[in-house]
């Protein structure tokens, strides 16, 4: 038995070592740094919970946290709604469904930064031109106000991620036994009732996966944020990841940024775990 145990750990060793080196150690170092006045060059002295106390009073951090939360809630709902709708469209019996699938998925293949710039062009130039043509003032100020920045980010994110989420839903929708849908059809369900009572409850596992992906992706969003609005105007569309980055690399207060990162990590972890737990409960085993 002892040798078996030994061999067991031995085989686990490569993974354990790798995981320790790239996840556990940096994580612990990060926690340690968050209690110091590290500026990126020298570790600095131990300052206790000062960084954590400061961040509770840091309006910019709290604003970005609130903005991120709003953004995540709206995006998660919208992405899942659009993703599921697209999946339902392309799994129905329409002719061009393969072409559509590819088309819908395409945005996801483009990097976030580039997408940000593309949409920046659309929001600023195209919207403005259209606005000028039809004389709508509101189309000419996109990304220059907090609201348009917010919706710009939501639209960008939905456009990019909906196709990806669609693929997940497609996988689950196609995994639904055909007979179940036929049975419900014969049982007298209209297409809406079929969706409401049969399809929707049965793709619940897809919700778990999709919600988790969208939630963590929107919470940790950085590159799209950077390239689309850059946090502007006046840092009002700055999300947490970007705020932390700026704290670290623009203001050079690395330890403080590290403290924010730890808090951010804890929040994301709690939200994600709670969400998975909550969704799991609603799942049905086939």
């Amino acid at each position, binding site marked *: 038995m002892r040798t078996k145990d030994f061999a067991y750990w031995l085989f686990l*060793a490569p993974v354990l070592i790798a995981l320790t080196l790239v996840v556990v150690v940096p994580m612990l170092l990060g926690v340690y740094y968050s209690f110091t006045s590290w500026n990126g060059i020298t570790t600095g002295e131990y300052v206790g919970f000062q960084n954590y106390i400061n961040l509770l009073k840091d309006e910019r951090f709290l604003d970005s946290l609130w903005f991120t939360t709003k953004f995540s809630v709206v995006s998660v709902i919208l992405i899942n709604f659009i993703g599921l709708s697209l999946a339902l469209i392309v799994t129905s019996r329409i002719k061009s469904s393969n072409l559509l699938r590819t088309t819908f998925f395409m945005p996801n293949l483009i990097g976030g930064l580039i997408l940000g710039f593309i949409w920046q062009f659309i929001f600023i130039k195209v919207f403005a031109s259209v606005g000028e043509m039809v004389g709508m003032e509101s189309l000419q100020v996109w990304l220059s106000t907090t609201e348009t920045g917010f919706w710009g980010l939501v639209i960008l994110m939905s456009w990019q991620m909906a196709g990806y989420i669609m693929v997940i839903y497609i996988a689950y929708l196609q995994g639904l036994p055909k007979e179940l849908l036929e049975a419900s059809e014969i049982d007298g369900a209209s297409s809406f009732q079929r969706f409401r009572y049969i399809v929707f409850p049965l793709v619940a596992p897809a919700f778990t996966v999709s919600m988790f992906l969208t939630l963590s992706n929107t919470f940790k969003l950085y590159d799209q944020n950077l390239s689309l609005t850059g946090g502007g105007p006046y840092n009002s569309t700055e999300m947490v990841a970007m705020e932390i980055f700026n704290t670290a690399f*623009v203001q050079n207060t690395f330890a403080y940024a590290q403290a924010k990162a730890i808090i951010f990590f804890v929040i994301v972890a709690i939200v994600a775990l709670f969400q998975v737990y909550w969704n799991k409960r609603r799942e049905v085993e086939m």
Partner: protein
Amino acid sequence: MKEFKFKKELLASLLVTTSLLAACGNGGDEEGSAAEGDKVTVDIFQFKVEFKEQFENVVAMYEKENPDVNIEITTVGGGEDYGAALRSKFASGNEPAIFNIGGPQDVADWKDSLAPLSDTAAAEAALDGTLEGVTVDSEVLGLPYNQEGYGFIYNIRLFEEAGIDPASITDFASLEEAVKTLDSKKEELEIESVFALPGKEKWVTGLHLSNTFIAPEFDHNVLDAYDSKTIDFTYSDAFKKILDLQNEYSKQPTVSLDYSQQVEELFSLERVAMIQQGNWAYGSIAGIDPEFADNGIGMLPIPVEGYEEGGLPVGVPMYWAVNKNLDEEVVEASKEFMDWLYTSEAGKTAVVEDFKFIPAYEGYDTSKISDPLSKAVYDASEAGETIGWVFMGYPTGWGEDELGSNIQKYLSEEATWEEVVDSAKAAWESSRQ
């Protein structure tokens, strides 16, 4: 039998582990072996992407002349964060011999690594005032890259057609007058607006524009700014006037207007008459319309009402620093290279003609400065009609993140000018406490 099997397992897992670790280790070895024979290797870690190619060519020339020196250049800049990259470069233990620092804050951050450069010929030749930001206790710790300056770049043709003589614009009043004239003739001149104010680029408003009005307060000395616990905003009214003028007569919305729209789309295509930018914009304008860039543009000062109204803000954007923690011979070789670059004939030619720098050193043939913007900057510098660059002495992040953001707020009418000024003052004080 059992033992044999166990040994095999052990071997297999050891193999996996070691090959994993070996894979991680390999990268480092190769870089270490770069120092071949008795050659001195000088690693340069620099940020100016724009002249990467020209710089590499010049370095190749130097290596040919000095076969015992091997220079490796790494360029990180443009969209990437040089400061962050430099920090990780140092953290990795792979310290460069020559790197870039920006001003007093960088000097303080990196002081443990900065070799004294007072004894170099380049430091000797540096123009007056260009070394202020990198001098600590009369020891020079950095060498200027070049000089840069900014102001209002204007379209000569449009000014002519509107009947404005650029030379007559000497103060705020005359500038305002000219702007109104231009604005009233928008239709005939076929322009969208007079200005293009890139409110999105917080460095334009928060660093450059603000510098024009803050530098006088600190006597144009970056160290004074760096050491100051407070800021008074003595010229905040003048600041507001210029900002309002630009904003009022700019294409809207200014908050989302960025550098490329401002310079390339609006100014280079002659859809606006004037922009606040520096000599670096020449490249962007020439990229769209070389003819226009060479002959159609000029630069006006930014008037500070109630102070000097004809000064062009000129300064040193970046310095070279030498890492003193490396071997003596590497430090010496680094210094020699710097001297050669800025004081040898070949180096000087390259600096002006290849790099198209406005030299920050004496003894250059300035007639070779070709583009009109650099010429304007150099002329102002010669004539002493300059405003110093003190924004390198702002608290870290204050200029862009604090002031720049608040100016965006002001432009969005989310804050009054008083609030912007007060909040900027408070932020300055709190970070200097």
